[in-house]
């Protein structure tokens, strides 16, 4: 069964460094999302991406964050100048156009900022 994959599974970085989290969507999916889950809290929407551009973003998704699909397969989330409070699980999710809006989640990347 097709699945969303994410790399790395765990990233440890120093405060102020840049990180890139990678996601490979299911091949025929057209909508891509990033979500964040701080430990012990609910899952929060960051950004949606459709037709090679950001379609919606939350207030969390400020200038520190960016997304792109550089090679038509990988979907990346870049966090510039990481802060301690960026430590969280980051989930990529993808879905088909139309239908039930069912989103398929990747296994997540656990980001630890020291």
């Amino acid at each position: 069964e097709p699945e969303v994959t994410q790399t790395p599974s765990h990233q440890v970085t120093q405060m102020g460094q840049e990180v890139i989290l990678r996601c490979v969507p299911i091949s025929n999916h057209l909508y891509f999302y990033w979500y964040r889950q701080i430990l012990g809290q609910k899952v929060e929407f960051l950004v949606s991406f459709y037709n090679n551009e950001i379609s919606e973003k939350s207030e969390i998704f400020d200038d520190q964050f960016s997304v792109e699909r550089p090679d038509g397969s990988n979907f990346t989330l870049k966090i510039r100048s990481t802060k301690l409070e960026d430590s969280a699980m980051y989930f990529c999710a993808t879905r088909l156009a139309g239908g039930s809006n069912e989103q398929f989640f990747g296994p997540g990347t656990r980001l630890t900022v020291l």
Partner: protein
Amino acid sequence: AQTVTQSQPEMSVQEAETVTLSCTYDTSESDYYLFWYKQPPSRQMILVIRQEAYKQQNATENRFSVNFQKAAKSFSLKISDSQLGDAAMYFCAYPGGSQGNLIFGKGTKLSVKP
């Protein structure tokens, strides 16, 4: 604002018994989907069940079923014959964003006692 509320931070059930997790939501839409996701300790997000709002029949997936009350905007999850592997966080979600991004409740931590 569209919101999803899970009023039970924690629930406990005896193995083989039945438990119901509650969820309420707020929307002005008339046609939409609702989802329950399971998050085990691995933190993977796993779709448990979905409900189409225009269908009056409650969705069922094996031991999992929902009690959908559209007028009350209530979407509870019933787990029958609970198993040890059902122990997890359970999140109710509604695709409230303009691009279908999911709005999650705060989750209910389910414990299953042997």
